[in-house]
């Protein structure tokens, strides 16, 4: 049980208490959005809403905050995976915008929101620099705040595998960020 745990809140929410449900939502929604941003960028809001509704349906069988966190991110991950499968089935060929008549370019709302959010930008950076498995483990550990065993339960792998993926991800991030930093320094020196 965590310090300042939400076991009582989870129990109240399981009984259908609206305030408890709102409390859980406010507490975990940012991390759910961050996790879904790493898996399905641009669709995290819709997927998060579906995740919460599904999790609420399973609440009556839960007793502790840890149970709820595991369930919540497990549902979010599966929702994101299902979303990716749907996108692959409904694959479309985007039209070449240069062939269309000149029109004022409408700003991409989702893109602007994501770009305007430093957290989302940081998460997107992580997913760009790391392989999917390592990025998933790092995001669950950093953004969702899950422990190694909890991450293992969510992604369906062993704790040892999670530890290895985490270690490799950290090292790779450090290398990639260091390389970027060096390149930025070189560019800065040349410009001077």
């Amino acid at each position, binding site marked *: 049980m965590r310090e300042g745990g939400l076991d009582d809140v989870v129990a109240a929410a399981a009984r259908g208490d609206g305030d408890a449900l709102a409390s859980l939502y406010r507490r975990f929604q940012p991390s759910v959005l961050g996790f879904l941003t790493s898996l399905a960028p641009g669709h995290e809001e819709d997927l998060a*809403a579906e995740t919460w509704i599904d999790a609420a349906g399973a609440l009556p069988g839960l007793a502790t905050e840890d149970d709820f966190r595991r369930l919540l991110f497990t549902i979010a991950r599966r929702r994101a995976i299902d979303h990716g499968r749907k996108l692959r089935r409904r694959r479309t060929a985007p039209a070449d915008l240069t062939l269309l008549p000149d029109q004022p370019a409408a700003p991409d709302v989702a893109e602007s929101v994501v770009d305007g959010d430093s957290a989302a930008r940081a998460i997107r950076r992580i997913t760009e620099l790391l392989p999917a498995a390592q990025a998933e483990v790092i995001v669950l550990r950093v953004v969702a705040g899950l422990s190694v065993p909890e991450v293992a339960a969510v992604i369906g792998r062993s704790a040892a595998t999670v530890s290895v993926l985490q270690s490799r991800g*950290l*090292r790779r991030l450090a290398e990639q960020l260091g390389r970027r930093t060096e390149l930025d320094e070189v560019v800065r020196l040349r410009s001077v």
Partner: protein
Amino acid sequence: MRANRLDLQSADRLVTGSVHPDDAPPGYAGVAALFDEARAGRPADPTRQAATISAMEAAVGAHLAPVPADTGDTKHMLSKVLTAKFAVAAGVAVLGAGTAAAATGALPSPAQSAASDVLAKLGLTVPNNGGNGASGSSDTTSTTSSTTTTSGTDTSGTAPTGGSGDNGDQGNGPNANATWGLCNAEAHNDGHPNSHATVFPSKSACASVTHPGKGQGNDTNSGSGTNSGSGTSSGSGTSSGSGTTSGDGNETGDDSTSTTPTSSSSTTPTTEAGDSQESDGTAGGSGSGHGQSQNHAPTHP
């Protein structure tokens, strides 16, 4: 640049935000700063929040609602189909078994009669034990009579007389005639004891046996009633029986004249007469042959 590998504790501190970027291990300062930025999260959309929480309340309420008890009305389709099939199969099996039993005459008399009536309407002819004599219509009666005769049980050919109820010998059933025939044979069989002749009743039993036709006052000529009745059954039985009676010698003029010719001309006389003569001379088919043939059967089992 090759980053140093972190131990587990350092890695945990880094991912959980316990390490400030300035205090991060060499090469991991940028990672710590990136994690701090990612961990900040972003506030939930207030409009979505209200709608989502309402949906969550509905979802929890739906799961908390008591599940209606199974009233039993919602049977599985499979069980319904299987029940119907079983009922049909059982009905067909019972019907088939009943028909077979009726065809072989194995049913009890009332059931056999009912089955015969029903199946007759369908064009099927089955034995009708219950209607024996009453209807006078079935061949079974004839068969039964001739069987009785040939079996030697009554030995005399008299049995057929009572075989059908429409004979003149009403009140004198086949047992009476058979007993009379047996006793008659017994009487004529004296002097030729044979261990196989166990069928004969004792003399004390025969002492009380009277002629079935005697005392009735009805001549077997009523056997003509046989002929008037129906077909095969009546004719066969009556005729033989009267033959026996005549063979007895007591009432020769009475019976033989009346019945024998009648029966002979009917359907089964050949079987009856011949059978009687061969199986036991007592019956003697027609009264005339009685004296000669009586010794045959007992002495040559």
